[in-house]
């Protein structure tokens, strides 16, 4: 028990030593990265560039929040593996659902006579803010 007590005080001392600058830097960094991911949409990047940038910025933000704000980088490895290990199983779920999704989509195109690529609808074509007849436009849309 004594051993536990000393370890606990040690880890608390460690935490108290995080300089405030680390939090402020991470905070600013999160702002910048969020701004960049918004810029991806604002400048209307499309295709692989868009998707890879979204994923990169997302993982950077998530990593910073988990590591610094949630203090994970200062925890002992036993706790880190208990926290970050189980969610890795989700990769299996995602892989299964991607494969199943492709199959279902193929079936819908093949057997229900649906188009493989439908024209996307612009909001401005449906909603007319000036004339205030959103409801009407909605009826037309169907």
């Amino acid at each position: 028990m004594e051993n536990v007590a000393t370890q606990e005080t040690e880890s608390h001392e460690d935490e108290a030593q995080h300089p405030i600058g680390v939090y402020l830097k991470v905070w600013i960094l999160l702002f910048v990265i969020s701004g960049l991911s918004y810029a991806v949409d604002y400048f209307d990047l499309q295709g692989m560039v868009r998707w890879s940038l979204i994923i990169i910025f997302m993982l950077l933000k998530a990593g910073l929040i988990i590591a610094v704000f949630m203090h994970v980088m200062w925890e002992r490895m036993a706790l880190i593996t208990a926290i970050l290990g189980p969610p890795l199983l989700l990769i299996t779920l995602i892989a299964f659902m991607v494969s199943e999704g492709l199959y279902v989509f193929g079936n819908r195109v093949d057997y229900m006579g649906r188009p493989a690529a439908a024209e996307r609808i612009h909001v401005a074509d449906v909603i007319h803010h000036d004339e205030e007849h959103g409801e009407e436009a909605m009826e037309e849309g169907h």
Partner: protein
Amino acid sequence: MSGESLSLSGHAKTVVEDWSSDKQAFNVPWGKFMMWMFLVSDTFIFSCFLVGYMNVRRTTTDPWPYPSEVFALEMFGTSVPLILIAIMTFILITSSGTMALAVRFAHFKDKKKIFLLMAVTAALGASFVGLQAFEWSKLIAEGVRPWTNPFGAPQFGSIFFMVTGFHGLHVSCGVIYLLVIARKILRGDYDKKGDYSIVEITGLYWHFVDLVWVFIFAFFYLW
């Protein structure tokens, strides 16, 4: 007993030591560990929502709406894409920053600063929920329903209301949680034991809410 016969080093060695010796495995306050277990299980709930979203979006043969147009706002006479969501994102990040500072001041047991920073965090969280209510009413007025919407695939509405609704519920609960703990801090409920780990535990929950938003922002709003 610990690892003398094993030739492990570094982090691997600490894992073996923590699990093998006759003591508690996780060297943190029990409340903090319970919060982590809750957050890990909550991760699975939100992951199921997002994987479900991926699946309906992959399988639908109807066109997916343009989120950046759906969530645009009229500002200064022009339509700014996705601006509402960008503002909400910045509010949530700001609140995460103030929460991190509250946890920082918990180490110095500075009650007034902890209270103030937690109250600011709660206020920012409440304004996030307020903007979400505005977003919901705007979309509902435009005819978006869980079963239909004028912009394309009907699944858009069901995913939108389910995912943002569940996240908004988490934020609302977080605001209440923050206010309750902040009041208890100021009242001196934790002075007797001098244990302020509750602030860090509350912080974990709040940062998790921000973390979930990072994924919703990327996959639902930007994709």
